């Protein structure tokens, strides 16, 4: 079943190319800063706006810092923090959604109301509240972005588990005397994993945007951290004269989001069980 999904994903050119590009971005973010060609934070006021060269592939900024290294390190922040928050959001959302749908009753009602309440609050507000109350740190930052994303994951997982709960094979397992744990781990999870995977990917795309927006607004992340959104804000006053400084981080944000979104679509098509039933 998994092999077949993989085959279909590979057959989908757009998704495959997006996956390759995105992997390249991530790998270079991981590898290049380690090689230590340039330092991302030290200032070289004599080397402002160096010409594009192998030494400085993306030139240097107004303070003479190497843009390429800054981008790669910034990617660690943007992509890393959003990945962390996505993992948090999807794990919590899946557990909440699954148990609330499967167990029902008061727990379900509570989960649904809390989700509705949280999703009514703009995520920027949540981050500000968390920053004010818990103090500032990258862990909290991810947590805050995650909390903003949990309701939508919970709702998706809950609705697909609800559809599944009335499936007759679940009833059959109950009549066989199987425990709820067995049913959830062996049947429910197995049947909703494709939903979860697709949800993970789409949440990741949304988190990258959220992370950049927060960086841009200097909420939770401040200069000189080279987070991509923060970089856009840092160089925004130079947009007239040195537009590439704004353009490069924007390009990376858009490219990452686009790739993740296309991967999401590819995953959805490859994993849709309705499709392989007709094969």
């Amino acid at each position, binding site marked *: 079943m998994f092999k077949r999904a993989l085959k279909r994903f590979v057959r989908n050119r757009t998704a495959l190319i997006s996956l390759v590009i995105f992997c390249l971005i991530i790998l270079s973010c991981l590898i290049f800063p380690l090689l230590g060609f340039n330092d991302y934070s030290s200032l070289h006021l004599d080397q402002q706006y160096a010409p594009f060269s192998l030494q400085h592939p993306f030139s240097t900024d107004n303070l003479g810092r190497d843009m390429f290294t800054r981008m790669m390190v910034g990617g660690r922040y943007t992509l890393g923090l959003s990945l962390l928050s996505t993992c948090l959001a999807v794990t919590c959302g899946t557990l909440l959604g699954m148990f609330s749908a499967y167990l029902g009753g008061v727990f379900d009602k509570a989960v649904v109301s809390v989700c509705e309440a949280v999703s009514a609050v703009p995520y920027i507000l949540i981050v500000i509240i968390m920053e004010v109350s818990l103090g500032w740190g990258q862990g909290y930052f991810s947590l805050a972005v995650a909390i903003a994303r949990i309701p939508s994951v919970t709702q998706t997982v809950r609705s697909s588990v609800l559809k599944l709960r009335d*499936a007759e094979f679940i009833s059959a397992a109950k009549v066989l005397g199987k425990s709820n744990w067995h049913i959830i781990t062996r049947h429910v999870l197995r049947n909703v994993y494709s939903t979860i995977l697709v949800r993970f990917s789409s949440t990741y795309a949304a988190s990258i945007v959220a992370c950049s927006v927060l960086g841009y607004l200097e909420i939770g992340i401040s200069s000189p951290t080279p987070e991509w959104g923060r970089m856009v804000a840092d160089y925004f006053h130079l947009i007239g004269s040195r537009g590439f400084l704004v353009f490069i981080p924007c390009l990376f944000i858009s490219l990452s989001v686009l790739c993740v979104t296309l991967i999401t679509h590819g995953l959805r098509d490859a994993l849709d*069980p309705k499709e392989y039933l007709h094969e």
Partner: protein
Amino acid sequence: MKEVLIEVSNLTRTFHSGDKITKALDDVSFKLYRGETLGVVGESGCGKTTLGRCLAGLLKPDEGTIVTKANGYQIIFQDPYNSVDPYWTVESIVAEGLKNRKEAVGLLEKVGLSRQEKNSYPHELSGGQLQRVGIARALGTNPDFIVCDEPVSALDVSYQSKIISLLEDLQREQNLTYLFISHDLAVVRHIADRIMIMYKGQIMEMGKTEDIINDPVHPYTRFLLSAVPSPFEEKEEFTVRNDRIETGGCPFAPRCPYRKERCLSERCSSREIAEEHQVACFLTEE
């Protein structure tokens, strides 16, 4: 002397959806004998599925008791595609209820599937084959009572007879007791020893298959039988009313052509009019 396997008394179950309260089972009492097939017949919404789920332990009744001597119970479902996990192989599905996974192959062979099919996934099999998988899974725990919830309704006719024959053979071999739920009177006539006719959560008439089919007493049974398509048969024409009135008594009263005043206000309890033949209708008093 027939041995009573399950005795159901005063079973009641209601469902709430919004402000609407539906009585899916309303004071249902009957006995099930070991080794017999009891057919439960009625139209959609008559409570037959709820009854099956209560007996299979999937639903808790609001009131009433089920006293059982059965060593185990199982259920076979209507929709073969929905009753197996699409991500499991046939062998794992059958082995789910087994202590020893090796027994699964034997069970598959018993229900007429071949060894090669054990590694197939459900979408590779036909509806008829999947229904066999469902039956094999049910047999795994060695039950002596099986609820068959419309087991052939979703199948094409050329598979129906095979599944019916399989169920009959298994019953003979293992002395199984079936509660056979169906809306199709022809199928029930073929397989059941006794028939129970339900309408809106209540038992209207119950008796030996021959008596119910050839000599129906309750107006609802007669109405139902008159509607069964059977080619070139002279059938009783049975016209009903279509009055929209509330009834506190017999649920069929608003449509019954023989309705009397008391039918709307008073619930008629089941009375035995012949051996093993109970009818819940005031007409039988005359």
